Structures are given as C-alpha cells and as structure tokens.
C-alpha cells in the first residue's frame, strides 16, 4: 500500500540563488528507486494551503532522499523555513520516472534547465552505476543560480549555460546540442516546456522528457495534470503527468 509519511528534515540549506537543498529521511526512502519520480509535499499549517507541492527526487543515498527547490511562491518559501529535526508530510515516490532498467554501456546526454536539473542528478548517478557514459548540459538563469556543478562533473563531462552569460556558455542548452559528441545514443531532459520542445525537435536520437504541470491530487485521480498524446489514434488520447509521467518518451505527448 502506498503511504504518506512524516519525514524528518536532516538538512535544509541555501545552495544557490533562492535555491535550497533539503535532505529527508523516513520509512519509504528505500522505495525511491526510479529517478524522475517526485515527492508530493504538504506545505503550510492546517488548511492554509490545500494543495501539495511536487518536487523531484534529486538523489537517494544511505536512506536519505534529497530534493532541491527554488523559492517561487508561498509553498516553497514555507519549505525553506523548515528546520532540522522538524518533519514534513510527504507522499511518495509518485509518478513514472526515467526508464533506465537495462540501459548499459551507452553514452547518454542529460539536458536540464533550472529546477529541471535536480532529477537529472539522481538519474546520472544511476546511469553511471550502470556503466554508461554521461554528458550533462545544464542551463541556469545566471551565475548565482548554478548548483551541483561539481556533483555533475564527477559523473562526466558537464557543460553549463547561463541566460545572461555570467557563467559558462551564454545562451540556451539547445544551442549546445550541435557540439555534442556524435556517439550519443539517448537523451534525458527536464526543464521548462519551451526547452523540452527545443530539445526534442533538435535531437534525432531517441530521448525521454520530464514535464511539469500544476497538480491537484498528484496521485492520478483528479485529471488536473493531463496532456494530449501526439497520436490522435491513441486509445485514451491523454496522459496524466502525475501518474503516467512526469517522464514520457519524446514525441509521445503534445508540448
């Protein structure tokens, strides 16, 4: 049975401009095996916030799960104020992540933008463990926003872009796709919709993308988070991002 858990906050620290890294532990950490899944987190006291907040699993290590989040509104603000020792009410792991079972000895490129970067770290670690070569292309708004650069470098070649050129390459992650090594076999991408659109239109190799959408239930019951399938003949015609996704084969759904 799926459960929710009051997870213990082990760490909650500022790692980049308005960006926090939170480490949690609890009963279900060991079931968080598939990169690309998310935690559905209750924010606020009482009924001030009726909706949970989806945050990607950024890493799992030694019974500890990491999420990395940017403060964009009241919920993430509230999260950033949690102190070590407090608990956070979490449903998870939710959704369908990146399908990497059996992926071995490939050269894979990870392409992430902003708060789309976190799930790629856990994904990259798993891929390296499975003997793949990993190249990461990570985009941020500016120098202040860059996080986890060293961590990604430990996994393999890592290229950073910033919108304002204050760090790494100036421009968008899509600008770098052309310079990538020809032997790349697959890509995995997570970030804002325009980026995912660019990425999936530029690449000719197969890939998987992870989508964001405002969620109601986060468990597949309310139809808040649907997207249309590209195939008009698809028997359902839609996918639920919280359940069938957030990860889809590139081209499966309309961006």
């Amino acid at each position, binding site marked *: 049975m799926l459960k929710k858990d009051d997870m213990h906050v082990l760490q909650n620290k500022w790692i980049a401009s308005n960006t926090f890294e939170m480490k949690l532990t609890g009963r279900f950490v060991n079931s968080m095996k598939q990169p690309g899944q998310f935690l559905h987190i*209750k924010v606020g006291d009482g*009924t001030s916030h*009726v909706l949970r907040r989806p945050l990607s699993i950024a890493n799992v290590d030694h019974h500890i799960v990491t999420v990395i989040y940017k403060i964009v509104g009241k919920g993430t603000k509230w999260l950033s104020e949690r102190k070590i020792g407090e608990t956070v009410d979490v449903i998870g792991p939710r959704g369908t992540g990146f399908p990497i079972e059996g992926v071995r000895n490939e050269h894979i490129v990870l392409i992430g933008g902003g708060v789309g970067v976190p799930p790629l770290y856990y994904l990259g670690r798993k891929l390296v463990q499975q003997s793949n070569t990993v190249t990461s292309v990570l985009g941020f708004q500016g120098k202040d926003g860059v996080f986890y650069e060293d961590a990604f470098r430990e996994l393999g070649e890592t290229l950073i872009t910033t919108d304002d050129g204050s760090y790494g390459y100036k421009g968008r992650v899509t600008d770098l796709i052309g310079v990538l090594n020809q032997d790349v076999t697959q890509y995995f991408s997570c970030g804002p919709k325009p980026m995912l659109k660019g990425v999936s239109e530029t690449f000719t190799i197969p890939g998987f993308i992870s989508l964001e959408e*405002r969620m*109601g239930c986060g468990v*597949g019951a*309310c139809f*808040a988070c*649907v997207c249309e399938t590209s195939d008009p003949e698809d028997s359902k*015609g839609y996918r639920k991002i919280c359940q069938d996704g957030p990860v889809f084969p590139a081209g499966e759904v309309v961006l």
Partner: protein
Amino acid sequence: MDLRVSLPGLELKNPILPASGCFGFGREFSEFYDLNELGAITIKAATSEGRFGNPTPRVAETSGGMLNAIGLQNPGVKRIMEEELKFLEQYETPILANVAGSTEEEYVEVARELGAHHRVNALELNISCPNVKEGGIQFGTDPSLAASLTRAVKSVSEVPVYVKLSPNTGDIVEMAKAVEGAGADGLSMINTLVGMKLDLGTGRPILANGTGGLSGPSIKPVAIRMVYQVSQAVSIPIIGMGGVTCVEDVLEFLLAGASAVAVGTANFQNPLICPELIEQLPELMDRCGYGSVQACIGRSFKHEETSLSGT
C-alpha cells in the same frame, strides 16, 4: 456509536463519502486504504462520449481553497462501466454515480445506462458544473430547467436520483424545491462557486479556462448556510459537502441538516482523510452528546423540539 445512515438507494455504514471528481473512480485511493471502509463512493462525472476537458492549467490554489476547471474529462459512460465499475466490483461500498451532459438527451442517456448497472446504487445529477461552456450550467441556475431535467432522468433511472445543486444562485431554496417537486430522491450540495485567479506576471487568469470552481475550506460557511436553509425547506435527504477537512466539519454539516457528508478537495491534501474522519467521528459525537448519526442530523434547527420532547 451508531454511524449508520439509510438513504434512498444507499445504505451507509458511516456518513462519509468522497465527493465526485476528487476521487477519480477510486482506483488510486485504493492504494492508500481499503475502499470498503467508506460509507459510499461518488465516482467522477460520466458523459455519453469520452471528453478531454479543458486545456491546462486546470487548477490553481487560493487562500484556503482551490480553483479547478477540469471540464468534465472522463472516458465516457461505456468505458466507465467496462473498466471502472468493473474494478469497483471487488468492493461492497455503495456507489453514487455522477451524471453530466450538455443536453437533456445526453443526461437521460447516461442516466439510463449507469442506472441500469448492477454496481450503481444511486445517481447524482450534476447540474452545477461551472466549467463547461455548453450545457450543464444553465440547468443549475434555472429552476424550471432543473425540474424538467430531473423529471426526465427520474423517468428512465432504475435507481434513486440525487440532484447536485450549484451555489451560484441567488435562491438555493427555490432550486431545491423545484427539483424535489420534480421527483428528486435526494440532494447533493454544494458544488463549487465560480471564481478566478490572475497571474500577476502575465496579467492573465492562471486557469486556461479563465474561470474555475472554488472548493475547499473557504466555501464551507456558504455550504453550511445552504444546507441549513434547504434542509428546513425540503423533506428529501441532503448529502452535504464543501470544505470538509476535519471531523468537526463533518459534525457541523450533520447538525446543519445533512444526512451524509462528502469530502472533496481535502483528499488532495491528505489522501487518508476519509478513513481518518470515519475513525475520529464517534469520539467527537460522544463528546458532544450524540449517540448516533441520526441524532445529529439537523440538530441546529431541531434543537428546541427535541429538548421539549424530552428524549
């Protein structure tokens, strides 16, 4: 503590049921708990053909509430019967099936099919969905249209029919009386209030649909008022809902005149809310001096009578 409630078509072992649209067809919540714990299950609105619904974003959070504009997405009545009701056969919990449509014919067709399904114990006529352009909404604001729709559906339904009322009206009592007069076996109330939230960045509504339905704790005072007024004006039972998040809210709806209480939005914040409420209800009722759910119903206005009658 006697939690049972007997309603037309629905023998509830406790007064708690999920509200339509906030529980899908039960499948996802069955991963959290045994659906047999519930008093009943309200399933998501069915239309005759499958619908994709509105563009996204479809939800937005508000102070103590949320807006939704799902737009009645559902796989259509046939697939609901084949796939979803089939799945629910493993449970014994009574099922209240929510019926929607754009035209009277569509409501009637869906009601005929669902009402004939052996797993459906009663229908809930959704004449109050604020989120679809064509149809639906006008049935919920015009008493005579609502009455004629109720009559049409009653004439084909093999099971009792509950009419779900919209709060977006100046006179809820008039609506309730109109559908009671047309043969409704019960009422569900309330559906969502029409609301909107703007994105200050873009200057536009957050919901792609523009407006959406407001649910959650913010609307509870409106819901309690409407249940209180309507339950004194009609003699059919009411399934009360709107902003329930705790067991105190359940009791408040019962006291206001509801015979059972549905939980919508709160399932999103806490997927275990329904079994938790069922577990906590007896203790609160006991503390407030009630020996059965039956004794709570309508106590806010039956108070004097009951004290006088000395029971």
